[in-house]
């Protein structure tokens, strides 16, 4: 590709079918307690 370079590997779609297990941390417990940025959390499965 000359015009487009994709820098991430995973496709979010693939996670929908297998996800939702709930093992991961509740978002607001992580650091801030006043906001929610879910995308910076880890999947724990």
């Amino acid at each position, binding site marked *: 590709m*000359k*015009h487009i*370079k994709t820098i991430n590997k995973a496709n979010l779609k693939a996670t929908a079918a297998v996800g939702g297990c709930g093992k991961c941390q509740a978002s607001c417990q992580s650091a801030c307690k006043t906001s*929610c940025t*879910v995308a910076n959390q880890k999947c724990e499965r």
Partner: protein
Amino acid sequence: MIHKYKLCGYNVVLDVNSGGVHIVDDLTYDMLTDIEPPFGDSCPQAVVEKLSHFYKYEDIISCYDEIVAAYKEGILFSEDDYEQYAEVAVASPIKAMCLNIAHDCNLRCEYCFASTGDFGVGRKLMTLETGKKAIDFLIEHSANRENLELDFFGGEPLMNIEVVKQIVEYARSKEKEHNKHFRFTITTNGMLLNDDIVDFINKEMSNVVLSIDGRKEVNDRMRKRVDGSGCYDRIIPKYRDLVEKRGDGEYYVRGTYTKYNLDFADDVFSLLDEGFDQISVEPVVTDPKEPYALTEKDLPVIFKEYERLMHKILDYEKTGRKFNFFHFMLDLDQGPCAIKRLRGCGCGNDYVAITPDGDIYPCHQFVGEEKYKMGNLDEGTFDYEMKKDFAKMHVYTKPDCRDCWAKFYCSGGCNANNYIYAGDPRKAHRMSCEIEKKRLECAIVLKAIRMGESTDPSEE
């Protein structure tokens, strides 16, 4: 849906639904303004004409082909087909709890959303009895979830440290029998830290959040003792001691920025200079009438400041060192699943907060909002209808979020902020959104730079 922006010489295109992150050249960037699916075999004549003023014909043709190829691969203009998963969270177990162990505080921070510690409902410490009931409640409502999270919050939790210790002991004593594992965390202002408490925290708490705003003058202007003097000099050595002894254990020094320190990148670096490398500094949540409140007029300055912070971080990393700024952390490949992303924070559904009186609220920021009281531990009441209602607060039921490019990163924002500012947990608070989106844009470019990506996509 796609989102495109320019930052630090990069043209970034995000494909919202697949999570695709692309660096593109100017031609692609411009072409994406004018085309969208369904795609024909060749680039529409009007678009070719428009672009041919600036680009070569054969480039336009090959660019169009690349866009269509990415579309066919499902990483550009991919469909949003997640809505079917949105309601799976209804009736999910409760797995996290915030214990407001002390509705009292030994500081009088001006911006405190807990109104000097008592949440506007009177000073009070939680008893061990209530704490035990909270643990029992959590275990009972956690169904098959093994990992349970318990955050000690306040007010200032160290004002009730003996009860904290006993609750931890009680919870640990129940782990085996119920096949649970507790993860404890604590948020403190540091005033009461001593050797004994530091050891306890470092042993039992999987994360500790240490409140401090940054530079001494910034911190002391807002974080004051009852007599009006600042707390900086007292807490800095204590935090250092705790972090040093903690080794690799997780922690955050966490500050708030207000209108008084719109140059908050300097506060982040001041904390770094003091020896902390896990840093979170966030916008104040407060009544817009307060003199220190952030308003939409401040947004351009705030945006510039996040960019400045980003550059400062990059300069720092050139010296071979690293630190974490919470809101720039982003994992493009191993992040949470789509289902978690669309559900959001889980407040009132898989997360609840408990007051010293045993009252149950959707989260710590809803405490004191009578309308959102979900029940009481002593009375054995719990409002499952309200739980269900909160479970349905996700990006598809929030009108602003539905069509927002940031929805799978932000997950619909903070329901409590929405309620505080807009009177409705489902109504996004525009200013918080703008800040969130700016942070994301920066975080993504930061990622690209760290990966050594060139701004020119044709370069390897």
